[in-house]
């Protein structure tokens, strides 16, 4: 009897012990992650899964963000593009996207003619669009090379890179096929080490075909240690329960890990600025070192000790004009990934205590903008400027419920281009029609008052806010100041101006009646002929919005029109829409009172429009996307 009961006891006790032992000795997810081909555990990085053990909530709130899925191995869980064997044609050449089991492939035109098949190894992006990279074995190392097609997640369609980046039509399929190893790796991963192989010379580094790398990252995607710094010392210290509880009793002052909201404002904005602030190594000669061992900045450091944030006049060698096109004439950044520059130019930062963490949280519910609750509204500003909120109309001179009384519309207007969208400027400042228009920067007033001219904006600002405001003297493009700013910018502006106003033209909260948008619509239709596909696409979206607001009967044509479509068909539709504008608009749209772009009976003044189009700046903008 006793041996039998003893056996029961032994078996009963052994079961949980066996489970614990197998868990301890069995599959270790941390070790598994660290053993993958692209992953290192150098420089005191431990990886996000290690952090998860003690900080499951923070890990979970990060894991659902687009930071976490910024770079991924290509597999059925990560690839969002539809690889269904379809054929897509851009710029006269076709590609086929297809699957072979769990492999994702593209049949592409080869550089020297013929065809080639590329297998997707990495994905970058998971929110707006997803880019794909193939793995190319080189003489010594490996290169991850960007493929020419991407999947636009919101539009649910394939696009050619040449039509997504802010550039003019270009039939060269190789134009944007950059190396992940020396570009994307820096900001789309944690603890990047590009690993440029020193077997080659710096001259070879410049020759794309010869570049070889042994790239590693601590984590694919932007993970904990990007913002909190490498975690090894922190993890090692707190393995012991006595140390943890001892420190809980004393104070939460562990300097081995960085909390971006608990450090001074300069270092705090540097945490985000390491990526959201385009920069060059400091000194510039460390460029080559970066290509081998990666950036030296770690969260909690002073960013300026490691890099020079790019400004309009930041020199590269003897050339101090390399980056000028990335800023408006007054120095305000006009591309994304310059938010650090914008914030650090703002009075809220310079004179106040604002940091990125004032409005953003990496562990909140809003995964799209990572904006704290309420911070998309006036609360963002009123948390400091509470007095203005007591009588908002006295400050804004606009009806309290109107968009003219929304803090962000005037002080953070959407004048920044990036990933085929116009984003809010992070240089928080006061609109000034004269300053803005003279520097080619879209003005917050005329981004909403779409039928008004810069002259009107200058006069109105002077009338409402005082003598310090004046009329602008001239536009950089030379277009007449008497024309509505939206129309003149869409026709005669430079690429970023055109994009920004193409987006703004479709906003339905503008104080312009649908029937009074005749000129805006004809100018937008003209923009369908723009040489920049991304601008055409934005104009199309705005036209669709205006068509929904007041139908002219062009909805089907707009829906079928493809901004990256075959050029003859694309232009034919655009010309047909322009040709029928007067006939379709009469009776629905009102004749503008003082415009010169539309003649009698809504007939477009093609001569004037052509002269404005001739003013378009031809300078290319390299935004390094």
């Amino acid at each position, binding site marked *: 009897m006793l041996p039998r009961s003893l056996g029961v006891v032994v078996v009963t006790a052994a079961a949980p012990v066996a489970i614990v032992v197998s868990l301890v000795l069995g599959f270790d997810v941390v070790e598994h992650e660290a053993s993958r081909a692209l992953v290192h555990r150098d420089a005191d990085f431990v990886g996000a899964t290690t952090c998860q*053990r*003690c*900080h*499951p*909530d*923070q890990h*979970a709130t990060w894991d659902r963000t687009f930071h976490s899925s910024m770079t991924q191995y290509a597999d059925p869980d990560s690839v969002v593009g539809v690889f269904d064997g379809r054929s897509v044609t851009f710029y006269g050449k076709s590609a086929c996207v297809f699957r072979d089991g769990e492999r994702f492939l593209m049949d592409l035109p080869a550089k020297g003619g013929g065809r080639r098949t590329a297998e997707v190894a990495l994905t970058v992006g998971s929110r707006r669009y997803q880019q794909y990279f193939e793995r190319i074995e080189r003489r010594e190392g490996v290169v991850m090379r960007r493929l020419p097609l991407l999947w636009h997640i919101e539009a649910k369609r394939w696009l050619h890179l040449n039509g997504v980046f802010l550039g003019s039509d270009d039939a060269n399929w190789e134009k944007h096929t950059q190396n992940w190893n020396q570009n994307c790796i820096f900001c789309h991963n944690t603890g990047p080490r590009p690993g440029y192989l020193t077997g080659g010379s710096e001259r070879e580094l410049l020759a794309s075909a010869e570049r070889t790398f042994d790239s590693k990252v601590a984590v694919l995607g932007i993970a904990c240690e990007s913002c909190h710094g490498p975690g090894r010392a922190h993890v090692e210290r*707190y393995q012991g*329960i006595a140390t*943890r*509880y001892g420190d*809980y009793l004393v104070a939460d002052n562990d300097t081995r890990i960085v909390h971006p909201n608990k450090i001074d404002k300069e270092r705090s904005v540097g945490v985000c600025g390491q990526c959201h602030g385009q920069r060059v190594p400091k000194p510039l000669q460390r460029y080559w070192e970066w290509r081998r061992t990666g950036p030296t900045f770690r969260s909690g450091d002073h960013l300026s000790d490691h890099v020079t944030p790019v400004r309009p006049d930041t020199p590269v060698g003897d050339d101090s004009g390399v980056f000028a096109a990335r800023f408006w004439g007054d120095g305000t950044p006009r591309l994304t990934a310059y938010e650090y520059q914008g914030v650090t130019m703002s009075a809220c930062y310079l004179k106040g205590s604002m940091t990125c963490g004032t409005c953003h949280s990496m562990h909140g519910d809003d995964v799209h903008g990572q904006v704290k609750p309420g911070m998309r509204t006036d609360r963002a500003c009123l948390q400091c400027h509470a007095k203005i909120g007591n009588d908002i109309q006295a400050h804004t001179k606009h009806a309290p419920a109107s968009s003219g009384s929304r803090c962000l519309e005037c002080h953070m207007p959407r004048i920044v281009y990036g990933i085929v969208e116009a984003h809010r400027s992070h240089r928080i400042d006061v609109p000034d029609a004269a300053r803005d228009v003279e520097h080619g920067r879209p003005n917050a007033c005329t981004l909403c008052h779409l039928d008004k001219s810069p002259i009107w904006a200058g006069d109105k600002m002077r009338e409402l806010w005082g003598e310090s405001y004046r009329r602008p003297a001239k536009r950089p493009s030379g277009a007449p100041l008497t024309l509505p700013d939206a129309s003149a910018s869409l026709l005669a502006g430079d690429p970023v101006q055109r994009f920004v106003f193409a987006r703004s033209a479709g906003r339905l909260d503008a104080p312009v009646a649908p029937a009074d948008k005749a000129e805006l619509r004809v100018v937008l239709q003209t923009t369908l002929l723009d040489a920049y596909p991304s601008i055409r696409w934005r104009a199309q979206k705005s036209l669709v919005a205006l068509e929904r607001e007041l139908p002219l009967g062009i909805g089907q044509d707009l829906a079928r029109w493809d901004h990256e479509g075959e050029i003859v068909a694309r232009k034919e539709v655009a010309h047909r829409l322009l040709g029928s504008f007067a006939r379709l608009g009469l009776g629905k749209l009102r004749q503008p009172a003082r415009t010169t772009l539309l003649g009698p009976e809504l007939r477009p003044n093609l001569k004037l429009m052509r002269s404005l189009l001739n003013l378009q700046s031809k300078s290319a903008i390299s935004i390094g996307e």
Partner: protein
Amino acid sequence: MSDSPKHLRGTVFLGWLLLALAIPAGLTLEALHALKVEVYLGSALRRELWTLAHAHGNLLGILCLVYAVLAERWVPDPKAQRSVSRWLRTGAVLMPLGFFAGGVLNFEGDPSFGVLLVPVGGVCLVVALTRAAFAARSAP
């Protein structure tokens, strides 16, 4: 039951009391879910600890009642009976209380100091159950 020893009446009282507290506690946890209360949902550790407090309260309440029913038959020695009752009651109070307190003002990755009651309660329960087991072996 009126003829039962005082310690067994106390164990029965505690058993019902634990159930009376732990069952509504479960409903409260459900309500915190339903109402999306951030204080509760925002911390996986707190959710786990309070769920453990709820579960242990119920199970140990039932254990107290079961012991009270079986004690006179299976733990006939009055001294052992009293001892088991004492250890069982102490453990049955400390364990759910420790889990609950561990989830109040807990740290980011660890329970608060209240969780120290849990191992103490666990030891009490082990003593009670071992004592009861050996007493049962010598029962007539």
